[in-house]
């Protein structure tokens, strides 16, 4: 019995062969496979590096923001302290003793001058200024006595007299003015430095 090992006989191609150019497709496939792997690896590392940098900068930004917030907080604390200190300076500056001024007024009076009433009131909006009122009787001309008193107040206590008003009835004079400190002095001067 003859061996039956060649059952498949030669047959002609049924379909048309592919054009020669189509041989580039598998070559292109391998090339692109290698290229894509290389590029993806490169892009991946760049991506990781950018991500690390982003996290680093975000962390740095957060720490800088924390420092900035602390600085702002400290600044507002200092500003508040400064405002309080200025308020205190305003208070102390408006607390100059009045008794020496009273004594000066009394001592400035001539022998024939008599004080009927003397009033000193601090201005509500500016305590360093004083609303001064003096009712007195003196020998004419009464202006001499008044000028002497105001001059002594100015020389001894550096208060200038402003907004002067006076009325006279017989030998009695009612005088009002505002005593304003000349220049900055005391604590206000120190604070201004």
């Amino acid at each position, binding site marked *: 019995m003859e061996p039956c090992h060649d059952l498949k006989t030669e047959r002609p191609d049924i*379909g048309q*062969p*592919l054009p020669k150019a*189509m041989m580039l*497709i598998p070559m*292109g*496939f391998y090339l*692109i*496979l290698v*290229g*894509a792997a290389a*590029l*993806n690896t490169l*892009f*991946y590392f*760049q*991506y990781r590096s*950018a*991500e690390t940098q*982003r996290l680093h*900068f*975000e962390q*740095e*930004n957060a720490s*800088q*923001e924390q*420092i*900035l917030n602390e*600085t*702002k907080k*400290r*600044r507002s604390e*200092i*500003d508040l302290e*400064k*405002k*309080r*200190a200025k*308020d*205190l*300076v305003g*208070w102390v500056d*408006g*607390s100059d*003793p*009045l*008794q020496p001024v*009273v*004594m000066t007024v*009394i001592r400035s009076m001539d022998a024939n001058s008599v004080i009927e*009433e003397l*009033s*000193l*009131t*601090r201005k509500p909006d500016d*305590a360093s200024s004083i609303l001064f009122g003096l009712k007195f009787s003196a020998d004419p001309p009464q202006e001499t006595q008044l000028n002497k008193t105001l001059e002594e107040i100015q020389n001894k206590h550096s208060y200038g007299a402003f907004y002067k008003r006076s009325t006279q009835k017989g030998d009695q004079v009612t005088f009002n003015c505002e005593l304003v400190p000349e220049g900055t002095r005391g*604590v206000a001067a*120190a*604070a201004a*430095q």
Partner: protein
Amino acid sequence: MNNKHLACTLIGGLIALMLWGTLQMFKKQGLKVQEAQNAKQVAESTKVACGAAKAALEVVDNNSRDLRDYLSQWDIELRDQTFEVAQAKMEQQISGQNTQLTFLRRDTADRKPFSKDGYVRETVNANLTLEDDFVKSLAWLGDTEATMITSRVHSCRIKKGQAADRIHMEITIMTPIVDGAGNKKS
């Protein structure tokens, strides 16, 4: 379409897929780099702002140090000065051993608002009227102003008294109650 065509189409599809994937990866990487650059810019601008704020703080700190030292010196005493303490001080000044003046009026409990948002929030006003010896009365006024260093004489009105050597004096003395008085400083 035979098998060869089918295989080519399949490989072509795979090639397109790989190109698309690579392009996507490239875009993703580009976005990440952009994000990193943005984060860097933000961090740098915050650093600049932080440096400027620090420099400004240093200037303000140095310029206001004397003023704030002045406040801290007074603050110790003023923080302890509550309404009760201020009133007690005033009472002591009026009824002290060296004071033997005739007071016609002595109201030491007149509490008045002073400044809503300032350091001195309220004042305790002592409204006093006295009629006594001229020298003694004025000496007392001077002593009060020297002793009660945180207080201020707000107004003083002097008239002739009943007798020749006596004066009639109406005074208002304000004692400050500061913001946070009665609280220990932390």
